């Protein structure tokens, strides 16, 4: 799957986040021959490091009406085309005693102007709808927020792109661009597993590399002023709330709490960070303090809930071209035609925006690519459902008897039918928390670009439940070793997986989180001696 099958494409898309995957799908649906390249794993950047919130747009209604309108439009589209990725929770915007209740009417007014349904609730009614909400609230507004699984969403785009002829490569880094007479004619790729290098040509190269897009653009000699904004979040071990809870005030730190599967997520902070640090984001003690203090104001139960992990993403904010100082930073979509902007042909950058608007970003950049290629094909992604989101057939519902197959349907939607579990040993459970079977692991390895345990976690949720990979990581690693025929490499990957988990645990290592960390160390190091089985640590690879 991860092989270079062709050396000439209409379009090469750089970046395997939601935007890149969405762009590859859009191009493929419009009949373009497209290659998607990602230097790491899909969803490795900001796509996989946010709240998992399907914004209604209400958050931006007062400060940025245009973004708000975009959001609610895309919100409604994603509910249609990506049903299996969305959980319709609705959201509350609450006013606490220290907040100004007058802001609520400004907020409701702005929401209605942007086309966002906003119902003012009596505080008692809000407490009844969402028992976890801070009971001292003095006001609440209900909006159509929801939670969305960005991993599943991105993979559904990749999957559909492939169904329509796209080629997709992970762990292939763009080391340089092929430039000829002020035209970008393709990319120079490094296979990070084998070390092999290759050149692939394309009429149009689309830079959808998120915060890493600045580096890609500079390879073409174009300058983009990015302002990396780090956002830290905490995941809690229980689903404390059933509705998204926001603060009804100007957007600030740690004012959104999103329920997500069996857990919930509080975030974010927002701090400018130097571009050089974006590959190694560490959550600081101060950020943890802010997230906890503010989070408890939304839902007091968070104070006594086990924290599973902390993580941080980097928003690819872009300074507008006429203000390189960065004072006026746009949160909107930025689609740069480097031909008209910098005199570099065949090269487009799509950046800015939000995970929420990935489809619209893909549409805009694909429109531009089509214009350049002289192809007049309309975009259909707003109407075409993503694979997995189709209503499930009667027969598959009948078949759904086990916990694992029910869980798999939740993750892969109608595609779960492709998971073949004919023998009893295929039905053995790898991950009890999330109900992942041997058959689903095999399916992910064969069909979903899984090369290591981190990939597997993102595709199947192995190790994402409350046990955080205590036993299932070892079981899954052993299976990967079998399916790929290299157990020693799988041991390295297991060590890499434990390290990746630990990076998230370290900032919150006290209470039961520290206790669980010691238990994990006792199993993997004390009992298993993994620290004496691996020769070097393997991070994401």
């Amino acid at each position: 799957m991860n092989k270079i099958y062709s050396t000439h494409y209409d379009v090469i898309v750089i970046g395997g986040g939601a935007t890149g995957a969405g762009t590859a799908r859009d191009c493929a649906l419009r009949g373009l021959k497209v290659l998607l390249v990602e230097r790491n794993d899909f969803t490795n950047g900001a796509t996989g490091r946010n709240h998992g919130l399907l914004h209604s747009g209400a958050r931006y209604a007062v400060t940025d009406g245009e973004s708000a309108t975009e959001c609610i439009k895309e919100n409604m589209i994603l509910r249609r085309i990506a049903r299996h990725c969305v959980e319709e929770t609705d959201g509350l915007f609450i006013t606490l005693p220290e907040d100004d209740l007058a802001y609520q009417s400004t907020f409701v007014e702005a929401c209605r102007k942007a086309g966002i349904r906003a119902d003012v609730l009596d505080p008692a009614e809000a407490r009844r709808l969402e028992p976890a909400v801070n009971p001292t609230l003095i006001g609440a507004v209900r909006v159509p927020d929801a939670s969305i699984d960005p991993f599943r969403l991105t993979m559904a785009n990749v999957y559909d792109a492939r169904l329509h002829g796209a080629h997709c490569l992970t762990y292939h880094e763009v080391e340089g661009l092929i430039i000829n007479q002020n035209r970008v004619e393709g990319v120079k790729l490094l296979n990070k597993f084998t070390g092999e290098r290759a050149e692939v040509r394309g009429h149009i190269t689309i830079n959808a590399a998120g915060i890493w897009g600045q580096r890609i653009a500079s390879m073409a000699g174009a300058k983009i002023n990015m302002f990396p904004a780090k956002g830290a979040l905490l995941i809690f071990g229980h689903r404390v709330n059933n509705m998204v809870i926001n603060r009804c005030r100007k957007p600030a730190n740690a004012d959104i709490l999103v329920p997500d599967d069996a857990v919930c997520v509080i975030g974010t902070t927002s701090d400018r960070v130097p571009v050089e640090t974006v590959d190694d984001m560490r959550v600081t003690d101060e950020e943890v303090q802010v997230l906890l203090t503010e989070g408890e104001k939304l839902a007091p139960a968070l104070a006594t809930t086990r924290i599973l992990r902390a993580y941080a993403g980097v928003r690819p904010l872009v300074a507008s071209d006429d203000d390189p100082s960065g004072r006026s930073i746009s949160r909107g979509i930025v689609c740069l035609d480097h031909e008209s902007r910098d005199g570099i042909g065949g090269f487009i950058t799509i950046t800015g925006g939000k995970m929420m608007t990935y489809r619209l970003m893909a549409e805009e950049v694909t429109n531009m690519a089509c214009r350049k290629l002289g192809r007049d094909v309309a975009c259909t992604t707003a109407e075409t459902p993503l694979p997995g989101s189709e209503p499930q057939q009667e027969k598959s519902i009948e078949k759904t008897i086990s916990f694992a197959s029910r869980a798999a349907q939740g993750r892969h939607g109608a595609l779960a039918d492709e998971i073949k579990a004919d023998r009893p040993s295929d039905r053995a459970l790898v991950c009890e928390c999330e109900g992942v079977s041997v058959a689903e692991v095999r399916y992910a390895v064969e069909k979903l670009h899984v090369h290591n345990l981190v990939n597997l976690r993102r595709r199947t949720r192995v190790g994402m439940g409350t046990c955080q990979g205590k036993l299932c990581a070892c079981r899954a690693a052993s299976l990967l070793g079998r399916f790929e025929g290299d157990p020693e490499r799988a041991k390295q990957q297991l060590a890499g997986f434990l390290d990746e988990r630990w990076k998230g645990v370290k900032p919150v290592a006290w209470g039961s989180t520290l206790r669980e960390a010691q238990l994990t160390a006792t199993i993997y190091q004390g009992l298993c001696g993994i620290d004496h089985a691996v020769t070097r640590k393997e991070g994401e690879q």
Partner: protein
Amino acid sequence: MRYDTVIMGGGLSGLMCGIALCKAGQRVAIVTSGQSSLHFNGGSLELLGYVDGQPVTHPLESINQLPAGHPYQKLGAERIAALAHEAALVLADAGLHTTGNANENHCRISPMGVMLPAWLTLEGYVALPMGKDCPWRRVLMVNVEGYLDFPVDFVVSGLRKQGLDVVVADVVTDELEQRRHTPSEMRATQLAKVLSTRVATEHLADAINVAAVDVDAILLPAIIGLTDDSLERLRQLVKLPLHLVATLPPSVAGTRMQAQLRHYFQMLGGTYLLGDTVTCASFNGDAVASVETEKLGDMPLRATHFVLATGSFMSKGLAANFERVYEPVMNLDVDADGSRSEWTRYDVLEPQPYMTYGVATTADFHVVKGGKPVPNVFAIGSVLSGHDAVKNHDGTGVSALTGLAVAHNILGK
């Protein structure tokens, strides 16, 4: 209720201490939640496996390389040798026969196929000479299909790295086949229950015998021999030497150790208060007069001596909140770094400072409160500060030896 000694915690250290006290005629009560780190045991006790990342061959000779605060430094090599000898005898008296001695480590095989230094290994489990040639050339690795808590590919790959020729055979019996239909019940201890009947053991032996062709030994995941003699029966029924290899938790070996030691303790007259936890202690001057438990409520346990054997963080013998590390029962003095950022290191496989945290003790393991030793309270096992069980592979050794040492201290030996 009045005892000579009340022990808080019924893991390895608490039981060793309790057994030694009962044997000397004391009235002893152990209060225990029932959970202990023995449930993560691989079939061996470890005296000292590694120092600074290097494997240890002769543990008694390497003890002087340990840091000053290590519990072994309070005992000294000579006393350690005597206590280690005594520990093996206590285990044998409890029905836990082992191979190995404190002078020279041997190797166990971990569930990831790693050769790890060990001091005492339960009879029936793999114990290979350390740094010498393996006694086998070609072995059969038995695999139970659908049982995922034994990563067979990891173990086989590890054995092959040692130069062994390994044949893998999937073994199915009617009893195992039935169990496979409920995947969530494919755990080591569950399988051991299934395999404990005479018929099930015979079926397993038959299936293994069919597969055991042209090999020197048979290796089986540790899924048999929970609390009965099924392992001995199986070893008699198979035609070649059979040895168990540790699985991921729950551990059959650990469950067996815990059960045998508890049984022996009770046989000696000890009181084992299972499913209970000590909540607080009442002081009379500097000394503790009694402790209260969750279940006994206002009926405190009085005793002349008290022993804290509550384990580390994972057993809740230590706790940490946002600001500090503390001992939750008596708020004893702890050895720990003050600032939270010092508790951990960024790299998961580096030694983590929090691992060495524990209660502060005097040279004879009296606990300390407010800078003053508590005259009638001792601490033993993983709640002690100064050792890193996962890096030094000394956790079970520290537990067994400090448990016995404190019993001697209490008895005035």
